[in-house]
């Protein structure tokens, strides 16, 4: 894997310039569609930007399938809840693509409270020669119409339109952290801190509550839902993770309200690592089924774990993402970094996993060879189309050249969101307001 990654090239990057960056430009989610042809990002300003992969051209070998902006639209606007006297941020928390069924693309985007279904479609022809209106669309005086003609479609410049098709609102009291499209392609779920709802794509005024962990008395609240996802093949199965580091697998066939789980994944605590921060760092920030559906991957503050669906008592693999932070937990608690929500992704064949860290570093773990690599997404340290060099963080002792010491890591530069192309070795990494796309070296 290491050699593979060593030779990755920066293919395309640098969406927006640093100097013009504002809070609204910070990327809050990244997601490839099911073919990998499109890549969507959402930002804190409520915008969705979709990139499309260029067709490969034979005379420009080095420009193998770059991603260019395809469509940009404002998905969510800031709102105000007058009943609760509450501002609702426009920040896009998650984007999920629906499998493509016709020429148009569909995606779900969500902020804290409202999920929207968007249709993204192309138009390269326009109708001409209407009888009752002229070319500018003005109605013609019927008295001037002396002949009838047949309207025709004429080619025009390609236009990409995004139109909101459904708005699923008013079903979440707390902040939505996950949305997941079911493999039946007719339903999806949305999860907030305490509840999970099941929706039909066609019905916006009603959803079914399938999980509710809100205690009758909120003073007794000690656990929240942090992420949820449907099984990729079994439409009755889903998992959700909690702030106590556990994962529950539920079967919707068992009952309408899945308040009793079918499986409960939990690793016994290692007493030697016990501290006041144990619970905080074990809180799961992301959960993802493997493409095969056999495994689930969870990310907590310091590690990524892979669980076999058939073994609940411990993960089959545990990877240290940045174990050198273990000695800094007090500081990270004080500056609130310990509550950062890092996500994790699988590659197309489930053999490599990727997740983010601080200092614009991200990590890859090869599950077969057990090798891992730290890479950096930054403009300062790498040029477009250059090969990425592995980075190393030095822990104590002498710092070698090219190594960075733990104390000089920049905790404001964090990579929380990444995506992996469904079938190729192309990855998208969101670093604050920049999107980086890396791919295997050509040849």
């Amino acid at each position, binding site marked *: 894997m290491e050699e593979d990654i060593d030779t990755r090239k920066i293919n395309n990057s640098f969406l927006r310039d640093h100097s013009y960056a504002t809070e609204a430009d910070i990327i809050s989610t990244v997601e490839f569609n099911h073919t990998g042809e499109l890549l969507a990002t959402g930002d804190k300003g409520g915008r969705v930007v979709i990139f499309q992969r260029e067709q490969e051209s034979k005379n420009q070998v080095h420009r193998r399938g770059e991603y260019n902006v395809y469509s940009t639209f404002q998905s969510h606007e800031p709102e105000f809840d007058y009943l*609760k*006297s*509450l*501002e609702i941020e426009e920040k896009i928390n998650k984007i999920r693509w629906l499998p493509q069924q016709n020429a148009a693309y569909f995606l779900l985007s969500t902020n804290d409270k409202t999920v929207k279904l968007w249709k993204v479609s192309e138009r390269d022809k326009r109708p001409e020669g209407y009888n009752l209106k002229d070319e500018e669309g003005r109605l013609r005086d019927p008295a001037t119409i002396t002949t009838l003609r047949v309207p025709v479609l004429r080619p025009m410049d390609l236009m990409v339109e995004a139109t909101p098709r459904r708005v699923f609102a008013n079903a979440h009291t*707390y*902040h939505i952290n996950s949305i997941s499209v079911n493999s039946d392609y007719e339903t999806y779920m949305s999860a907030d*801190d*305490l509840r999970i709802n099941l929706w039909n794509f066609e019905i916006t005024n009603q959803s079914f509550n399938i999980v509710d962990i809100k205690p009758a008395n*909120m*003073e007794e*609240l*000690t*656990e*929240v839902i*942090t992420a949820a996802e449907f099984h990729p093949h079994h439409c009755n199965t889903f998992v959700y993770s909690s*702030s106590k580091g556990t994962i529950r697998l539920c079967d919707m066939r068992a009952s309408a309200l899945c308040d009793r789980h079918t499986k409960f994944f939990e690793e016994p605590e290692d007493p030697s690592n016990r*501290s*006041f*921060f144990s*619970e*905080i760092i074990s*809180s799961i920030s992301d959960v993802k089924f493997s493409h095969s559906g056999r495994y689930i991957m969870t990310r907590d503050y310091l590690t990524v774990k892979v669980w076999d669906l058939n073994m609940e008592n411990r993960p089959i693999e545990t990877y240290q993402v940045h174990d050198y932070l*273990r*000695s*800094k*937990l*007090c*500081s990270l*608690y*004080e*500056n*609130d970094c310990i*509550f950062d929500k890092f996500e994790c992704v699988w590659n197309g064949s489930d053999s490599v996993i990727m997740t983010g860290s601080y200092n614009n570093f991200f990590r890859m773990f090869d599950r077969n060879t057990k090798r891992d690599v730290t890479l950096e997404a930054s403009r300062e340290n790498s040029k477009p189309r250059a090969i990425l060099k592995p980075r190393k963080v030095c822990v104590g002792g002498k*710092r070698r050249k090219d190594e960075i*010491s733990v*104390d*000089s890591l920049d*905790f*404001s530069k964090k990579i929380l969101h990444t995506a992996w192309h469904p079938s190729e070795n192309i990855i998208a990494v969101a670093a604050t307001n920049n999107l980086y796309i890396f791919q295997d070296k050509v040849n």
Partner: protein
Amino acid sequence: MFSRGLKRKCADHEEDVEGALAGLRTVPYSLQRQSLLDMSLVKLQLCHMLVEPNLCRSVLIANTVRQIQEEMTQDGTWHAAVPQGTGRAPLDRLVSTEILCRAVREQEGVHPDPNLGDHEQGLLSDLCPAPLAQVPRSPQSSIWVDGPQESRGSFQKSLDQIFETLETRSPGCMEELFSDVDSPYYDLDTVLTGMMGGAKPGPCDVLEGLAPAIPPAGSSCKSDLGELEHVVEILVET
């Protein structure tokens, strides 16, 4: 746990590193725990002032506080940790916070916590609405067991309020928070105001402007807000 993470930033200053570490070794576990408790309470208090705090974060901090409280109850230090009376709060607690978090502050220079802005805004927006509604106090729950009756009661109340307001929000929550003269938060505040203002006879002056029922008017509100802002600034910077 604590004793490992506290290296100074610059590796060149060997003596400083040694000094800091030596200093740390002398900080007893109970003090470290106490300063973590203080830090957590301040965080919770600030969450509490936001209209819609990050629930996951609030729950995790609240659990940390519960855990410390449980442990302190077990080794019998809980009553000692909750100071009696009002004026004399243990200064060494603040000193230990200072030692514990020095590494962070050095990394960040003098920049205050980036979250401070939000918190302050939340605080001020909570302060500004004039009618301060009375929030019915929740009945005392039974999770807090040992310790002297009086201090236990007040501490318990404050925590209850925090847990309670994870759900319910009201512009009156500020008044709620500061109305308990003998709560441990209040002691922390008192110490801090004492440190910055010199002779302050009673614990109430700074926050008097917040007294319920009487909406603070124009100029006095402004100065009080300024002072309060300062207090919060100090709280967060420590």
